[in-house]
């Protein structure tokens, strides 16, 4: 029973993890994208449509990432080039994503597309406990096992990662070294959007094999909280995502099992209350309050000749 719950935690934490990782990359460059919910929905519907029509889940997944990248590019153009307020642009993106996915998805409601099937990893999945929890999933879950260390490695151990962080911390310093601040932010926002969208595609291609309107159900917003929760670090994002995935899974299980007589709606509040409480606890610690890890230039558009 407990193994099943933990395994489910990994499964339902995975879409959160994709979205959180995507946003970490975006925010590390100094851009805040509050449109995660919209991007996930775009990813979910694109993935579903392509996979349904081509009968190829991989094509669907790639298409979802491309669609996410395109919409993130729109946000990038708004906030980097046009210097529109990042909060407002992010909300507009969510609105647009919700609308477009709903519009495109109308004829797909009730249909079933191919999905990523379970792929037990030979030896690893036989390890008692661990195997069941971590190595009895679909390929996208394993993809995050690569993506998390890879993101960490690139961010903290390579030159491109250094440049990305410098742009988010001290854009003028990066600029004076010949780094194109705008370009770096464009790239980070676009890649971040693609990865976020992959989280949406996970919902329609692996978690289920259907399209349901608004199926991201607030995961995009939780991911935004998780970015802060994880102090902009990939491994902590993984822990946070599984924690919340676990909470969501438990609530579903309790609901389905009918063992506990609490209204489903009350249970559904849990992840949000937990996010809030966790943030309060973290915020009251002195170290976290100074937001170590937070990119100092987050949300501030860059312009070189501003002072004149």
């Amino acid at each position, binding site marked *: 029973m407990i193994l099943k719950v933990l395994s489910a935690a990994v499964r339902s934490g995975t879409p959160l993890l994709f979205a959180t990782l995507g946003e970490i990359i975006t925010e590390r460059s100094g851009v805040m994208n509050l449109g995660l919910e919209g991007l996930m929905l775009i990813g979910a519907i694109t993935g579903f449509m392509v996979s349904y029509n081509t009968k190829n889940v991989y094509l669907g997944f790639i298409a979802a990432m491309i669609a996410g990248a395109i919409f993130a590019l729109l946000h990038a153009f*708004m906030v980097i080039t046009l210097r529109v307020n990042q909060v407002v642009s992010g909300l507009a993106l969510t609105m647009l994503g919700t609308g477009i996915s709903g519009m495109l998805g109308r004829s797909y409601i009730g249909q079933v597309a191919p999905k990523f099937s379970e792929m037990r990893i030979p030896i690893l999945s036989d390890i008692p406990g661990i195997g069941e929890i971590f190595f009895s999933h679909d390929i996208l879950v394993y993809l995050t096992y690569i993506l998390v260390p890879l993101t960490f490695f690139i961010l903290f151990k390579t030159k491109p990662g250094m440049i990305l962080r410098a742009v988010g911390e001290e854009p003028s310093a990066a600029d004076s070294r010949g780094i194109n601040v705008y370009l770096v932010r464009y790239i980070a926002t676009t890649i971040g959007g693609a990865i976020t969208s992959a989280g949406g595609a996970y919902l329609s291609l692996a978690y289920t094999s259907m399209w349901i309107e608004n199926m991201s159900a607030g995961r995009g917003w939780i991911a935004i909280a998780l970015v802060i929760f994880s102090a902009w670090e990939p491994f902590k994002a993984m822990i946070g995502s599984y924690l919340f995935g676990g909470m969501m899974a438990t609530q579903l299980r309790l609901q389905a099992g009918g063992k506990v007589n609490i209204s489903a709606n009350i249970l559904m509040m849990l992840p949000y209350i937990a996010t809030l409480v966790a943030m309060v606890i973290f915020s009251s610690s002195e170290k976290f309050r100074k937001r170590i890890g937070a990119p100092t230039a987050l949300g501030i558009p860059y312009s070189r000749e501003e002072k004149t």
Partner: protein
Amino acid sequence: MLKIRIVKRLNPPKYHAFLVPILSVVISLMIMGLFLWARFGKFEKVVEAYREMFSWPFIFDYGLPDTISKMVPLLLAGLGLSVVFKMKIWNIGAEGQLYLGAMATTWGALFLFKNVENSLILIPTLLLMGAIAGALWAFIPGILKAYLKLDEIVATLMLNYIAAHWLNYLIYGPWKDPEGYNFPLTAVFPESSWLPMFGESGIHSGVLIALAMVVLIYFLMYRTRWGFHLKIIGDNQTAARYSGINVEKNIILAMILSGALAGLAGGIQMLGVQHRLQHGFSPGYGYTAIIIAWLARLNPWAMIVVAFLFGGLMVGSEQLQIMMRIPISMVYVLQGIVLFTLLASEMIFNYKIEILIPRNGGEKSWR
């Protein structure tokens, strides 16, 4: 080498204030027209759709009352947000605060004061309850922001979801109308709690409250020292502290006011329009209000116009849905496009693009 750079205009011409919104609406309608054209296959249908959308919401006997009743919550919530946005506090939680207002008002109307028949006492009490509930809901992120530096965007978002589930819990559970055929809605409020209508017009008196609030917020923000203090905090928190302003207290106060107005919007929606609490009573008023506050540049008077137009947009798209079977998600798409083009064109007009071509003896630029 050709170089392009974007330079802020120091003095954008005055006519931009009108030109920009009009142009961006035209652009988004053109984009949207392409969508519709693709759907209908016939250009005449697009024209017909637009004619419907732009006449219906603004004609007195058809959509106008509906437009106004949608304008009221948008305007109230937008006003509240303009207060906190002035301080650069990003309250994204108007939607949740509006739910709380609606819930508190419902609680009063259906349970607490169900035997009070004097409307003159009952209605103000119920609306006050709504405002207080909204204020309390905004107080939580306010105090967390002020003293723990907790990110208010995330906190208010979480509270929106908590409020939405709480509301669902009530209407699916304890507050469900026993005679409602198991639909998620409460019983109808006693008529003594309904907001009076202007004769047969179908316009409820909540619009007067909203307009009164415009005056009140204008007064607070532009004619009192408190408004000036919020402006200082918004520009430079350190300078505010240096000037002896209590930043924490003012963040909380502004959040409370912001939440109270959103809560009031929820209450008016209950007593003026719905007369019962039901699922989906707000088509995202609280989120749209963010956009309205922003597009009106936080100016209370401009907000009347913007809220009215957005109310019209909502009603017009509903009309399209009924008449031409265009899905409601289209509304979000249209709103999204309008918003993007508005934001983009505003910026484009505030900046000018210079193309630089190096020549002998320096560079020439075209603006």
